[in-house]
């Protein structure tokens, strides 16, 4: 209640000099307004930069099968096949930091033929529709193939822009059939242009089909060229080319007798994939995703303590680091700007409060004569400067929001409202009021009433 009266007295005192109060506050208004506007614009562009970098793959992880070793000789990464499509499903279902997963089967390069043209795409990838989500890769035309197509090993494909350019020359490819290794694939969609990758590879030079199609119809086995690497890489599926139906493999080996099976059990082979692509929920989450996937795969692959992993996880650490260092730089820069503008504003407040104390010396003397204690005077002047700063802060928030709104609507820059910045501004402007108002208020409270009353 008494505090209310002090507040009232402060407001009255400030109202007595509206123009000066307003101009004093202007420092804080501009300071806080600039901070808010910059934070919002900064946040907005930071988010859009993040989105851009993410589309470059900062949040993607790639899981490769581990290395096989035979007689002490390691055959290097990818020489065994340990990853299954079920692993991919399980990762998606059980790892909370994972946004999407897609198993990937690669085919050896082979010419894609359309009419009298042919072209060897850089990549022939078999996968699921989620691959587009993992790579953040929209279609420019047509529609993606579906999970049903994956189950049926349907003869459909998506093609990249380079392939369109080389094979179709202005013609719409959707609905046309291309041939790959004597398998006719219907083009259902065209991928949007993605340009070169970080390494300078043309990412648009690609053909994407359901992984079952690639594995069972096109390649037979995807790792035929690695088949010698390890016994585990031997395949129980099929090596026959141009096979029409998956799973209906006629064995090319003679059937084994019961004794043979008992003596040397064939390792239970699952359908394997060459790679699993994973998108984490954000670039920062890739670390967590890695941990989660590692423990999940340990469990699924029955790897005990101390056993070597039969898989490798690679992330885009370099890109992620560039991203986070950009963000940190930006935040720090804004912080420095904020500090400078608020200090300038605070010095303005202190200056005016000092003038005000000098000018109102007689008033202070009078207040002391009618019974104000030093602390009362201190409190009054401190309240005045805090009120000035808070009013400035409030107006600054409006100014900042207004500016960022204008920037969005006129310049079409992305902005992102930041509650943190608003709270910080209020706290900071109140602290500026206290810090820079304290000295003048203290000076006022130490005046000698006799001197003050006699002050001309």
């Amino acid at each position, binding site marked *: 209640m008494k505090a209310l009266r002090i507040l009232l007295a402060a407001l009255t005192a400030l109202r007595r000099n509206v123009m000066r109060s307003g101009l004093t506050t202007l420092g804080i208004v501009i300071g806080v307004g600039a901070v808010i506007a910059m934070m919002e614009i900064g946040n907005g562009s930071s988010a859009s930069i993040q989105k851009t970098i993410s589309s470059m793959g900062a949040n993607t992880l790639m899981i490769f099968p581990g290395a096989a070793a035979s007689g002490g000789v390691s055959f290097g990464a990818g020489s065994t096949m340990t990853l299954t499509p079920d692993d991919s499903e399980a990762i998606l279902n059980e790892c909370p930091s994972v946004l999407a997963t897609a198993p990937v089967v690669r085919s050896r390069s082979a010419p894609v033929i359309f009419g009298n043209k042919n072209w060897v795409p850089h990549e022939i990838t078999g996968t699921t529709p989620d691959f587009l989500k993992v790579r953040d890769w929209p279609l420019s035309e047509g529609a993606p193939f579906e999970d049903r197509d994956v189950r049926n090993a349907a003869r459909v494909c998506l093609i990249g822009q380079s392939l369109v350019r080389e094979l179709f020359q202005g013609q719409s490819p959707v609905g046309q059939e291309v041939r790959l290794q004597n398998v006719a694939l219907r083009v259902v969609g065209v991928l949007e242009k993605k340009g070169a990758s970080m390494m300078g590879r043309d990412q648009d030079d690609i053909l994407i089909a359901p992984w079952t199609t690639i594995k069972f119809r096109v390649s037979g086995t995807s790792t035929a060229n690695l088949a010698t690497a390890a016994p585990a890489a031997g395949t129980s599926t099929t090596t026959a080319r141009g096979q029409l139906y998956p799973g209906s493999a006629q064995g090319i080996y003679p059937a084994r007798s019961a004794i043979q099976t008992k003596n040397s059990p064939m390792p239970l082979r699952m359908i394997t994939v060459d790679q699993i692509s994973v998108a984490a929920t954000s670039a920062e989450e890739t670390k967590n995703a890695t941990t989660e996937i590692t423990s999940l795969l340990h469990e699924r692959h029955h790897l005990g303590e101390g056993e070597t992993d039969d898989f490798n996880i690679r992330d885009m650490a370099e890109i992620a680091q560039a991203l986070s260092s950009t963000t940190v730089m930006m935040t720090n820069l804004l912080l420095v700007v904020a500090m400078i503008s608020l200090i300038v504003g605070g010095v303005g407040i202190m200056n005016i409060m000092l003038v005000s104390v000098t000018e109102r010396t*007689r008033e202070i003397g009078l207040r002391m004569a009618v*019974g104000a204690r030093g602390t009362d005077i201190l409190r009054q002047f401190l309240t005045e400067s805090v009120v000035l700063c808070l009013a400035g802060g409030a107006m600054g928030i409006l100014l900042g929001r207004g500016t960022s709104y204008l920037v969005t609507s006129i310049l079409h820059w992305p902005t992102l409202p930041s509650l943190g910045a608003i709270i910080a501004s209020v706290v900071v402007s109140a602290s500026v009021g206290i810090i820079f108002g304290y000295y003048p208020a203290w000076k006022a409270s130490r005046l000698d009433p006799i001197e003050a009353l006699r002050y001309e």
Partner: protein
Amino acid sequence: MNLIELRDIRKTFYLGEVVLPVLKGITLNIAKGEMVALTGASGSGKSTLMNTLGCLDRPTSGDYSLDGQEVSRLPNDVRALMRNRKLGFVFQNFNLLARTTAQAQVMMPLLYGRKYISLKDAKQRAETMLARVGLADRMDHQPSQLSGGQQQRVALARALINRPSLLLADEPTGNLDSQTTREVLALFKQLNEQDGITILIVTHDPKVAASCRRMIRMADGLVEADEITAEVSS
């Protein structure tokens, strides 16, 4: 009963090397309900005595008891409270707050009291007090809209709002013409006689001094004369 009892009050200022005794041992009593004029040439120490009586300044030595309480050695905050409760000040130059309504001026000392008074009560009391000094219709006027006499009456209402036992007036009529001087003096007298407020007026003006029943003349830091004057009708 004595409201003010001074025992050998001395005040010495030390200005670097120079030692400047201003009050050289003042002993005097003022009873409740008196109206006293304090006169003397400038430099005689009457302002210093006034500040000491007003609890604004501490004597170098001596005892000062106000309303039965020794106040010369109290800490600052307690003396501030004494000023708030027991003392009212009226100044030569009014010392009103610029661009503040009369009502707000008069309410101001209530803010510093120890007791909490609601805004409504405070306004009510300010109105009563302003009516008392004849300014009921000037409640919302600012100092620049008031004449000198009216300004001094606002200051008087402000000094009286906490019902002080002692009113200290430092040349209250120094800036007023003779007509308003008479009005203000009449008001002082009325307050003294009707409300029993003890009043001490520092003045140069023999006419003002003559309107008080008792006159204390100071010279060179000592009480030169302390006499009951024949009352002159104003």
